[in-house]
């Protein structure tokens, strides 16, 4: 087993450990387990970063060309952003959403063929890693806003119907969830914007045109407009709470389609050969 694989599976294991701890904290009502989970997740993120560093030194350039690599990178972004969010809002319950999602992404990554590629000369530009980093960090932020939105709807439903289940005790207040949702949106939106712009500029250096209405680009633009509408509604009309939560859930569904569906169903420039995703 190479160092890369070893680090990868070790990270997966640590994320799994954090997931278990978060779930014990949530279902067993043991907040201490959730607090330990946070530190385990920090350790996982560091390991993960280590595995990228090793990969970088082996392949050279940005190691995010295959589905295996990009899912793994997505997981890392998600964990990173969650930890930052947790620092600000103390969201142990959300850990029970973010860490299993990271595990899921890692498992997906493990199941995809892992080939450390001779990088396509096309991808060897400083703009490419910038494009990738922005796009994935943005995706991760939106994934977290999706989680917060989901929790908001559950909590709202329980408060309205006056029927409370076990999870009620653990959910943060509606206000907090709304703030998390907004924070994720206001972080994710600029990241996504920069991701699209850097992608266009990079596209220009490679294909000689900024925008080619490739399906991925089109869907990314649609998603971007959705989030732009939500941000606009929040800032001007005072959209918040339930409406914003629903919007961020729909937005994320579009995002998922842009990220996965387009490649699987529509094809286009972003699909380099059989293994790539962009």
């Amino acid at each position, binding site marked *: 087993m190479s160092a890369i694989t070893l680090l990868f599976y070790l990270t997966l294991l640590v994320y799994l450990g954090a997931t278990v701890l978060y779930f014990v904290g949530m279902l067993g*009502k043991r907040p201490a387990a959730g607090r330990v989970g946070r530190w385990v997740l920090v350790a996982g993120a560091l390991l993960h970063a280590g595995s990228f560093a090793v990969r970088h030194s082996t392949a050279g350039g940005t190691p995010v060309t295959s589905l295996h690599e990009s899912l793994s990178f997505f997981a890392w972004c998600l964990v990173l952003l969650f930890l930052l969010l947790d620092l600000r809002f103390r969201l142990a319950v959300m850990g029970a959403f973010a860490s299993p999602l990271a595990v899921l992404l890692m498992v997906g990554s493990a199941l995809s063929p892992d080939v450390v590629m001779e990088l396509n000369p096309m991808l060897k530009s400083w703009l490419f890693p910038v494009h990738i980093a922005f796009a994935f960090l943005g995706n991760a932020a939106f994934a977290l806003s999706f989680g917060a939105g989901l929790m908001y709807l559950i*909590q709202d439903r329980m*408060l*309205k119907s*006056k029927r*409370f289940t076990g999870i*009620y*005790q653990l*959910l*943060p*207040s*509606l*206000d*907090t969830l709304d*703030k998390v949702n907004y924070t994720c949106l206001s972080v994710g939106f600029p990241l996504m914007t920069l991701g699209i712009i850097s992608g266009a500029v990079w596209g220009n250096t490679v294909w000689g045109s900024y925008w080619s209405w490739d399906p991925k680009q089109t869907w990314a633009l649609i998603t971007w407009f959705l989030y732009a509408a939500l941000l606009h509604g929040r800032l001007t*009309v*005072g*959209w*918040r*709470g*339930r*409406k914003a939560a629903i919007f961020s859930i729909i937005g994320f569904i579009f995002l998922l389609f842009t990220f996965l569906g387009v490649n699987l169903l529509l094809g286009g420039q972003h699909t380099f050969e059989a293994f790539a995703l962009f």
Partner: protein
Amino acid sequence: MNILVVGLSHKTAPVEIREKVAFPPTEMAAPLEQMLALPAINEAVIVSTCNRVELYATSRNVAAGITELKQFLCAYHQLKPADLEGHLYDYAGEEAIRHVLRVSASLDSMVIGEPQILGQIKTAYGYASEHKTAGLILNRFLHKAFSVAKRVRTETAIASSAVSVSFAAVELARKIFDTLEDKTVMLIGAGEMCELAARHFVNNGVAKVLVTNRTFARAEKLADEFDGTAVSFENFREQLHRVDIVLSSTGAPDYVLEAKKLKEVCKLRRHKPMFLIDIAVPRDIDPLANKIDGIYLYDVDDLQGVVQANLKERQKEAAKAEAIINEEIVQFQRWMATLEVKPTIVALRQQLDSVRKAELEKTFSNLNGLGKKERKAVEAMTNAIVNKILHHPTNILKEAQNGSDGDFYIDAVRRLFNLSDTTEQAPQASDSGEN
């Protein structure tokens, strides 16, 4: 030695009976001393609260002890035994231990998990130690009860959720708003429940209170109490968009707040959530308001429902608490068992005998020249020494068993000779309950 409990509680006796047998806290000396003077009773503690009156005692004779305690309770309060017939319960041994542990852990309370009872038992124990009527066993036992109560409180969620309507309201507000400190409460009308709820909100950080009432003077008076502002009843609707929490309890026959009006208010608030509590019957706020996005409307029944659900939750937690108590009973009984005379004497003899044997072995291995006969003689001599040493202490222990201070002798012997807590010689002394 046995622990005895005789008493009655809200579960077995109505308040008319309970008040007749209550012991006023100002005169605890006389009953405690009289109780201790009962021939079969060795230690005495009296717990007297508005929900229960219980006598805790230790005795060698369970039947006689319980009879005497019952007679004492009647005689002291000048009641006939028939008056308390059917209301009194009595427990001995393990059942008594379980009962006291359950009571102090608040499992036997009217509202399971309520925190006062532990303090009340601590006070009762305070009186007993002040008048020196609690001896070795009850001292240790009640400290055990306190630590078990604490364990139950920290290891189960028995006291974690609100079981009163006004606390339930505050708890719900915390699920809507992340902080109450920058929130504004408006009281419409001046029902007692409303006032109580408002007080809970203020105690939990709400800084701004608005009060409105059909009679402006009453609004002003109430506003003064909360350091708030009075608003005239004609204009209170214009202030609503500034308000995050509404507490309403007017005597109005119709709705004071219509859903349509609240929809407008929502817009003015830019859809910030609003928590409406309608304690009035007939209701003050149009129930349709709950359908509006961002408005959470609770009427009396809804709040009662929350309280009921929380009570059910507490009952579930109580099952966990019972398991903890079972564990602790076993531990405490193990300690109680060591206070028996016979096993103590056996343990003492075994202890000295093992010392004797060990020393003999050492000596014999150094003295190779000894014959069988000589060995036997030395062995007999050491045996005689041990018997001579043990003779008097054994007699004292046997006699002490009948006196009231026997437990102290037994405990002292166990400590002096380092006899382990379990009667069958455990390899190391367990420290169960030593706190």
